[in-house]
Each structure stands twice: as C-alpha cells, then as structure tokens.
C-alpha cells in the first residue's frame, strides 16, 4: 500500500498542495481557475501547511494503522479499508458529530458543507494524490510502505 510521506527539509510553504487539494475536491475537478472563481462553496483543503518560525511542512492524514478516528466513530461511518489501508468516511452515514475531530491526533479531519455537515479527510485522490503531484520541491512523496500488524 502507498502512503504520503512528508519531507520536511524540502518544504518552502508555498501552499500549492493546499490549492491543488481544494481543486481536486471541487465540482470542477482539478480545474484551479473554475474552482476558485466559480465554486459556490469552496472545499476545504484536506492537507495543511504547518508553520512556526523557520519550520514548515505539509501535514495530510497519516492513514494510521490503529486509527483513533475509526475507533471513536459513533456511527461506524469512519472505516479503514482492509485492502488499501486507507481510512475513509462514508458520507451517507456520517452525522457530523465531530467525534473523529476530537480523536484525530493530527488534526487531519475537517468539517465541510454549507453548514459543516460532513467530516472529510484525505482520500489519496484515488491513489493519485494531487498534493504530491503538484509539489514543486518533492516535499511530499507517494511511496510504498508496509504497515506493521497489517490485516490486508
């Protein structure tokens, strides 16, 4: 399975990862101009640049092996795919209680929708993460990892 790895030493905080993440999750898929000019409710980025002084790096969902969000979810809508290892939220079953937000140690789950009615997170763009593809510095890389104690 593949994961996004953070290469802190290469990040310059340009925020292109955030911008391409927003476009990837808009109705104008991947189209930056239309997304930013025409999308009525612009999606929130599922990845954020963390900054303090000289330090900056992009932080997406870690797709944890033992995911706090999955364990905490009160509906069973937050799940970990046994094959891919990706953690995903079923929009049909989420009731927007935000228990996953209280549980995620990385702050990687965001409230979305016109009235914040859904918990959303990194979906790896169908194994084609736009944040990684558009990072000019290779400060994010998408690579194979083996999960310890993996069930897949």
């Amino acid at each position, binding site marked *: 399975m593949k994961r996004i790895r953070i290469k802190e030493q290469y990040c310059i905080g340009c925020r292109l990862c955030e911008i391409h993440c927003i476009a990837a999750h808009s109705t104008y898929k991947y189209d930056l101009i239309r997304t930013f000019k025409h999308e009525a409710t612009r999606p929130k980025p599922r990845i954020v640049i963390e900054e303090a002084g000289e330090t900056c790096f992009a932080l997406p969902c870690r797709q944890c092996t033992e995911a706090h969000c999955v*364990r905490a979810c*009160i509906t069973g809508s937050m799940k970990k795919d046994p094959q891919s290892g990706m953690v995903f939220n079923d929009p049909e079953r989420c009731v927007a209680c*935000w228990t996953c937000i*209280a*549980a995620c140690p*990385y*702050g990687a789950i965001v409230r979305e929708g016109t009235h914040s009615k859904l918990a959303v997170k990194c979906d790896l763009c169908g194994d084609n993460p736009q944040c990684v593809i558009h990072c000019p510095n290779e400060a994010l890389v998408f690579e194979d990892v083996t999960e310890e*104690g993996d069930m897949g």
Partner: protein
Amino acid sequence: MKYVIIGNSAAAVGAVEGIRMRDQESSITIIAQEPHHTYARPLISYLLSGKVSKERLAYRPDNFYTVNKVMPMLGIKVTRVDSDHKRIYLDDGKQVDYDRLLIATGSRSSEVKIAGMDLQNVFPFYTLTDAQLLQKYLRPHMQAVVLGAGLTALKAAEALVAKKIKTTVVVRSRILRTFLDPAAADMLVAHLRNAGVTLAVGQEVKEVMGKEAAEAVMLADGSTLPCDFVVSAMGIVANKEIVSATSMQVDHGILVDEQLRTSVADVFAAGDVAQGYDCVTGQRRVIPILPVAYAQGEVAGRNMAGDHAAYRGMGMNAVSFLGLPIISAGLLHGEDGDEIHVVEEKASGCYRKLVFRDQRLRGYILVNQVDRAGILTWLIRENVDVSSFKASLIDGTFSYAHLPINVRQRQLS
C-alpha cells in the same frame, strides 16, 4: 478456544474485531438482551428526528456476524455468571460454557423515584426499542417534558423540537455537568433557547401528574408544566447484576485493570459496565462514552486472544446541538495550582478553555471553534511536555511545527 461476549454494542463489536486480529478461527458467541443487529446507540435521537433511517443505524454492516464468524444469540437475557464452572445461565433455561468471557452489558437508565413515573406515556429513551415506541406516539404540536440534563436528554429534546413538539427540559442543577464548565453550559443553554427548546434550569421535579397517562409535570416550586408525554433520561447505571453471585470486584462498575481483566480469571469487562483506568487522573472510573467502549472492547478482545495490550481511557465528548459544535476532554475545571486559560469571544460565540498542570495539558473545552481538537486530545493522552510551545496553545496559533523536533519526528515517521 471458545469466546463468549455478553452484549452487542460498541464494546462487544470492538472485542470481536480485537479477537479477530489474533485469532481467525475460534468460535465467538454474542449473547444480548436487545433483539437488534448491532446499532449505534447514540443515533437513536437522529432516528427520532427522522435524520437517520433504521437501516442507517447499523453500527456495522449486515454481514458483520457472518464475516467475523460470530454466532449471535439476540433477545436473550443472561441471568447469571458462574465463574467457578465457566458457565453462564440464560433466561430461556439454557446454559453456555466459555473459555474466555467478556461482559459488555452496558448501562441502562437510572430508575427515578418520583411519583407518576409509571404512567403509560412516560418514555425511557435509551434503546432502539425506546426510540421506536416514542416515534409511534409522536404527533405534531404535542407538548413534551424531558427530565434530565445529560447528552441523552438534550439530544432527545433536539429531536423533539425538530418534530415540531413543544419541548421543556427540566434541569436540576446544570446541563452536561461531566462535559462542560458553567460558562460553556451557559452558552449552550442560550443557544438551545434560541433554537426553540425551553429549559427550566434549577428545578426539581416533584411529581408526574395524571391518572393513567401523564398530563403535567409538577415542579418543587409548585408550578406545573402541562404535557402530552414525558421523556425520562436522568442518568444511567451499569448493568452489573449478572456477576453478583461471583467473587468479582465491583464498584460503580465491574473493576478492571489496564488490560480490561476483571478480578476473576478469564473474565474481562469493557464499555459502560466496566470501571477502568482514566489516563488523566490515574483513577478507575466508569467512562460511559462510545469511543472508550469500543477501545476497551478492542483491547479486551486482543487480550482474550492472548495479547497483553493495555488501555487507559479519557473522558472526551464531541457533540453538535442544532448547529453548535462542542468538544471537551480531560479535566474541565482544574484545581489549586493548575494553570487555566480561557478565551471567550462573545461576537463569534467561541469559547476555549485549556487546563494545564505540571507543564502538561490536562483538559480542554472548545465551543463553536472545534477544528483540530484531536491534537489537544493527543497532547493530554501522551502526557506531552508543552513547556516549549505552551504560548502557541494559549494564543491559538499552535501547529505541529511548534512541537520539539524529536516529538514531531517520532509522531510523523
């Protein structure tokens, strides 16, 4: 190996998934009093309001028992556990033997000793069946009185208001005492009132009045609240009676160690019935919330299958009332010597309280602005030394980049 689980809610599901991490083959039997497929209990208020259908109440998919090779025995009550002979007795006269047993019987509504609580339209609100009975009874423009001040009571009130029922909640002292401090509670009270819920705060119920059906609720000050029905949600108690014939150590709940083992060999307990360790206080207490129930169940399951995993829970609540999100965790009040920081922004309706002790974050309350709260939960759970970045937590600018490099690298590797 024969695993038996008494209960069929979050802790039981966690145990099944925990057992199956290590043991794919041995038989698992689930015995539960409620007749339903495992469902997400906190969602019964959403069922009542119509926001969620019965099908979507399922906590795990329909094939959960099949996929995990579980034999469900539902609608059957366990009358007692005989731990000497590793046997449990059922109300249909049958017996079941076990090698490893998990008690995950949860909790139930407390019995309330007030005159009139036995009238036919006084509804408990704790199970799916309770919610279905109440759902059938509802007609638009009825008047309801809800007794209780916890999450269950307030979520019931939220659902009733959504169904156009004129609803009054009678609160003895303060709403959500285990979850909010007085300032945050006041903000929620104001929000609920704006949204059309009537709250009678600081009121004691004297009597539910009526001959066969409740017609009004009389308060201690002599005033009456006319109503078409009453919802009773005044606290919960652990379903621990089935072990009363054993030597098992019991307090408010069944006492368990960090591995969720009871004082009796091969018997584990998890969820609302268990009194396990709190990672913030180091004391044992019942933490009756779903995330703790699931996590305790999972750890119990792993250990039933031969592991030695440990878990300490934490009080943590996230909830959204009529559009107002609130999250809190850990210590909410603080004691002498604690460092407490409160930011209240009246204009935006945001409230943020942080409780520090010995350069560690020990608790927080967030109202309205709840994003990334889990980072705070993590700081509490992992007992992270915050001295180098405490200022950023207090002024709200904190990010992962503020963490000391060794902590950050360990966490992100």
